[in-house]
């Protein structure tokens, strides 16, 4: 009984259970799928901000790299879906390596500005390779492939099926990121966040660890991009626009950067708001901005730390964590 209870207190288990039940009580399956995809992106982003203390403005480029890679591989080579996703994530990781290699030499706001500049360079470059990317028209002719593994194959055209496919990839990625953040190398990321100078002084070459964090983050951001590509069956330049980088930052901060899971909540909220408000009111970003300001000023730990405070009160364990431990 006790072990069952402990099992249920594991946030990962709770998130898995909630997201399995979710599409049955929430009638908008496509929207739920989108929440998962942006949740994955936000958690990947937070490997850098929350765990390593690096603010990246370049995650739209990484997400876009994943989406374009998947799209191009599908349109030109009818690639196997799993292979395509792996290649997309790998490609985004490679771009992250490149951006990281150069940007990581600078600290704080200069680092953030460099990643933003790279995002712009990347965006512009894509407009130039019209043959490959479709330029301003976007990439067309993308289809959602069946899941093919050896002789077996399964269609995921139907929204509910696709949701569960995305959920499967999502949970797998979440588990992987949980292992990374709980690993010896993950502990170095936290040391860098806490005090880079001291981490360096005890013998860690922080530059390399930061690049590795960037690459991991890029891998999962690219995976989210690939999923989004086969979800919406279209890739456009807007996927790489810096404003998406900004949205991801808002998702993470709104949900709370102090844990692995907080950004999921932020991603779900922003995605939901966008869906409800964007249709009614084209200035919905204004509202998002105001909510964001309120959160940053008054609820610094984000929604997640509120949930944690509540649940620790329920379980009567008065311990508050603001930062990933």
């Amino acid at each position: 009984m006790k072990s069952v209870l402990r099992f249920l207190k594991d946030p990962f288990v709770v998130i898995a259970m909630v997201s399995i039940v979710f599409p049955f009580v929430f009638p908008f399956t496509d929207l739920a799928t989108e929440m998962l995809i942006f949740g994955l992106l936000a958690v990947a982003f937070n490997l850098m901000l929350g765990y390593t203390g690096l603010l990246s403005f370049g995650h739209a480029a990484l997400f876009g790299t994943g989406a374009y890679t998947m799209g191009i591989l599908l349109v030109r080579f009818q690639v196997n879906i799993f292979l395509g996703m792996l290649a997309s994530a790998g490609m985004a990781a490679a771009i992250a390596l490149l951006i990281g290699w150069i940007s990581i030499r600078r600290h704080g706001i200069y680092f953030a500005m460099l990643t933003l500049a790279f995002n712009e360079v990347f965006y512009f470059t894509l407009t130039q390779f019209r043959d490959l990317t479709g330029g301003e028209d976007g990439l067309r002719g993308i289809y959602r492939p069946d899941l093919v593994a050896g002789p077996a194959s399964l269609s995921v055209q139907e929204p509910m099926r696709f949701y569960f496919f995305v959920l499967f990839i999502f949970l797998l990625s979440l588990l992987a990121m949980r292992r990374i953040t709980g690993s010896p190398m993950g502990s170095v990321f936290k040391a860098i966040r806490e005090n880079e100078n001291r981490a360096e002084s005890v013998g860690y070459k922080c530059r390399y660890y930061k690049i590795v964090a960037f690459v991991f983050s890029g891998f999962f951001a690219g995976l989210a991009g690939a999923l989004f590509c086969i979800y919406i069956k279209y890739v456009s330049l807007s996927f790489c626009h810096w404003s998406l980088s900004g949205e991801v930052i808002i998702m993470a901060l709104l949900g709370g950067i102090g844990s692995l899971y907080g950004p999921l909540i932020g991603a779900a909220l922003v995605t939901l708001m966008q869906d409800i408000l964007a249709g009614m009111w084209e200035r919905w970003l204004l509202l998002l901005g105001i909510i964001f300001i309120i959160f940053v000023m008054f609820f610094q730990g984000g929604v997640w730390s509120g949930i944690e405070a509540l649940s620790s009160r329920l379980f009567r364990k008065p311990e508050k964590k603001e930062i990933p431990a």
Partner: protein
Amino acid sequence: MALLKTTKLLKYFGSLACVYYVDLEFEEGRIYSIIGPNGAGKTSLLNLISGHLAPSSGEITFRDRKIDGLESSQVSQLGIGRSFQLNNLFPALSVFENVRLAVQSRHPGRYNFFSNIGAYREVNEKADAIVDKIGLSPSSAKQAQYLSHGDKRLLEIGIALATDPALLLMDEPTSGMAPEETVMMLGFIRKLALEHTIIFIEHKMNIVMSISDQVIVMNQGRVIATGTPAAVQADPEVRRAYLGGID
């Protein structure tokens, strides 16, 4: 052979020479103290040795290997540990984790990104031993930022110790400590000297006299005297620099 040697070491900030042609040799297994008034260049000298500053000119060798120009992480990996004048900890991490991170920096497992952090028992055991050695076992799980000042000073040294340095550099380990804490710290440094060569900075002269094998006196970037505590105490130039403040 000297363990550490500086040759014509020079460091300018703009036109201010904070370390001026410093030639020093440090033998293995002894306790050295660097004293001098505030702004004498003591911390800067330590920063040059530990790779936190690059010299304007001159040379530093450690075990006959040139180390000036290396990054602080490289200097650390060669076996020079460093504690800081102002607490330089991982504030939101536990005492144990502060020390464990430093131990882990020598372990090949630091590159492992898929096992649980507890996977390397030897790392955890050694971290526990060091937390014990600095007397912080009861606070092992406490976040570093919530320690008392004295305990922070101990953790500061614990982190440096955890990297197993042959040479331990300590910048004012007793700073801000109450007199009885200072006495304990000096006892602790004496114990550390059994396993490490020690260079420590202190700006109060009386403190160093009892435990140092050699005293180095700095003033305005220059080394104005070196020798045994007694010899240095008798040195007229030292007396001038301290305006009779020696006792």
